[in-house]
């Protein structure tokens, strides 16, 4: 879905969301309440600069609007794959963004992620996956890596990976798999404004994703292993 | 016997040999390309049983030969060896098995 249509659907009352390069930011109103909105579009590649720009908005929200909920709109191809970004510590910039979002959560800001187009790996770990809860539109896709690069690294053939992407929940990029695995809390269909309003109320503040993955059957081992480590003599 | 899509599971049993006293499980080696890990535990029977999961299929006879040699060098009884293998050569397999026995005899703290 195009970000403008998304913004209108999420905030039918009003919003001031704008695009600056690949970054989205602004505010929207839900049931009379102002929400800070930030995110990416155009399948953004997240480099050092874009990570910092997003972190700035989170920090400003913490400072100037205590308690204001934050909505992260996610459409990214993952981290920028450039030597310069590696040299300049893209991992640290991404960690910084993640830490800012995490601080917002601890300071009482409800943080909701929404994958509305695509999300890859590094660009997703430090945004949607560090929110209180992450949701997705049904047509969105989440990947760890593109198949050609994955084939090179794993030595599994592209054909094999493509077949697995169709048949195996562990490989399939559809967001319904992520729901079954607990990574995505739920898909938003129909009235998106309503879905957002509900999420702001119902999103957990502790990490329940392993429990969700076990309950939903898509990721059965993680939660029991966590418990076993907690209980081990 | 082949399991799903590419792993081969093998099992061997060797009789005779001397019982090892009680011991804590021992792990040697690492599962990496051309390498293997060997877990040695007290066995439930009087034999020496060896369970192997390997990604290098079709080498059953070589495993048997290597293990037979090993059991002649170290005729252990009442032990269970479990192996995860990623294509180690017979020399590396023999080395790890000998390392496993050394670890039994001189347990690391």
């Amino acid at each position, binding site marked *: 879905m195009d970000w403008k249509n998304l913004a209108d659907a999420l905030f039918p009352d009003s919003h001031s969301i704008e695009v600056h390069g690949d970054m989205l930011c602004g505010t929207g109103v839900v049931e009379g309440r102002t929400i800070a909105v930030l995110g990416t579009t155009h399948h953004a590649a997240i480099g050092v600069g874009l990570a910092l720009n997003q972190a700035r908005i989170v920090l400003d929200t913490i400072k100037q609007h205590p308690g204001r909920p934050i909505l992260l709109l996610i459409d990214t191809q993952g*981290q920028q794959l450039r030597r310069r970004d590696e040299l*300049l510590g893209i991992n*640290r910039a991404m960690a*910084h963004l993640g830490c800012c979002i995490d601080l917002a959560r601890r300071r009482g800001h409800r943080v909701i992620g929404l994958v509305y187009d695509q999300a890859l790996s590094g660009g997703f770990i430090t945004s949607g996956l560090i929110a209180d809860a992450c949701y997705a539109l049904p047509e969105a896709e*989440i990947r*760890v890596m593109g198949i050609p690069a994955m084939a090179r690294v794993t030595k599994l053939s592209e054909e094999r990976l493509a077949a697995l992407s169709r048949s195996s929940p562990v490989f399939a990029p559809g967001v319904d798999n992520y729901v079954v695995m607990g990574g995505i809390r739920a898909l938003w269909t129909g009235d998106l404004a309503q879905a957002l309003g509900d999420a702001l109320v119902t999103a957990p503040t502790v990490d329940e994703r392993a429990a969700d993955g076990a309950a939903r059957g898509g990721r059965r081992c993680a939660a029991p292993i966590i418990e076993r480590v*907690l209980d081990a003599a | 016997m082949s399991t799903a899509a590419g792993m081969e599971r093998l099992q061997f049993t060797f009789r005779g040999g001397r019982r090892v006293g009680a011991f804590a499980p021992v792990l040697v080696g690492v*599962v990496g390309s051309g390498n293997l890990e060997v877990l040695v535990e007290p066995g439930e029977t009087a034999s020496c049983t060896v369970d192997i999961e390997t*990604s290098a299929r079709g080498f059953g006879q070589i495993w048997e030969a290597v293990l037979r040699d090993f059991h002649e060098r170290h005729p252990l009884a009442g032990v269970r060896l479990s192996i*995860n293998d990623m294509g180690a050569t017979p020399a590396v397999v023999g080395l790890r098995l000998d390392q496993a026995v050394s670890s039994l005899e001189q347990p690391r703290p």
Partner: protein
Amino acid sequence: MNPSYAECSARERIARLFDPGSFHEWLPPEQRATSPHLAQLGVPCAFDDGVAVGRALLDERNVFVAAQEGEFMGGGVGEVHGAKLTGLLRRAVRDRPSAVVLLAESGGVRLHEANAGLIGVSEVMRAVLDARAAGIPVLVLIGGANGCFGGMGIVARCADTVVMSDIGRLGMSGPEVIEASYGVEEFDARDRALVWRTTGGKHRFLSGDCDVLVEDDVAAFRMAAIECLDRRCPLSLEVLEAEHVLLGERLHAAPAGADAVAFWHQLGIVRAEQVSDLDAAGLRELRASTALSR
């Protein structure tokens, strides 16, 4: 003789770094907590799924420990591996050891477990930040040949302290992935000196992305870990604002291009061309003479 940290396996590092005989493992190999996803791909499991976790003593202080085995699947985080780390960190919040020491060696998400690995790494990241917020210091030691990349590269920078050797590398994307995407002119993955100038321990130490640089030596890593046991940096708005200013200034001041030597010159390192020849002590002197010294 001082054993090379890089050449040790994860378990050898644990045995040599912590107080002798003090490591007590949780979910040891004989419990066979293995990956549910690898067999279908014809890949062997490891009995510990590539990470050993437990408690130990470090200079007689209680610490929780995790060591990733870089030789198994490149240290990649799969479902069980990630859950062991998450469980360890959650237990740290409950049991309050002096610190959590993570001997990291990982390419990030284990691609063979794709989605399960990605969610798992994210749970580890949340758990590190929970431990940090609870006042339990998290120390990450990076000295293996595979380095610490991908989602684990982000996790490392969520910790209180990062200790590296020059053999260690820290970043997000490996050089092969960058070369595959943008060509050899962008990043020649076979130019080892270039690779290490870009993401290796010496560069990270000079740029401030790691806190301590040591020689490739288990004893040196042990000493550094002991010294950093009480290095606790709880995250606050002030701390993150300061980090933001630092990263922003670094970005704006950095010379164009991706040349490490030019970058070090700009940092005020006078003998930038000689960095690759200096040892850890030499690098410490250089860094102390720059604006980074605190």
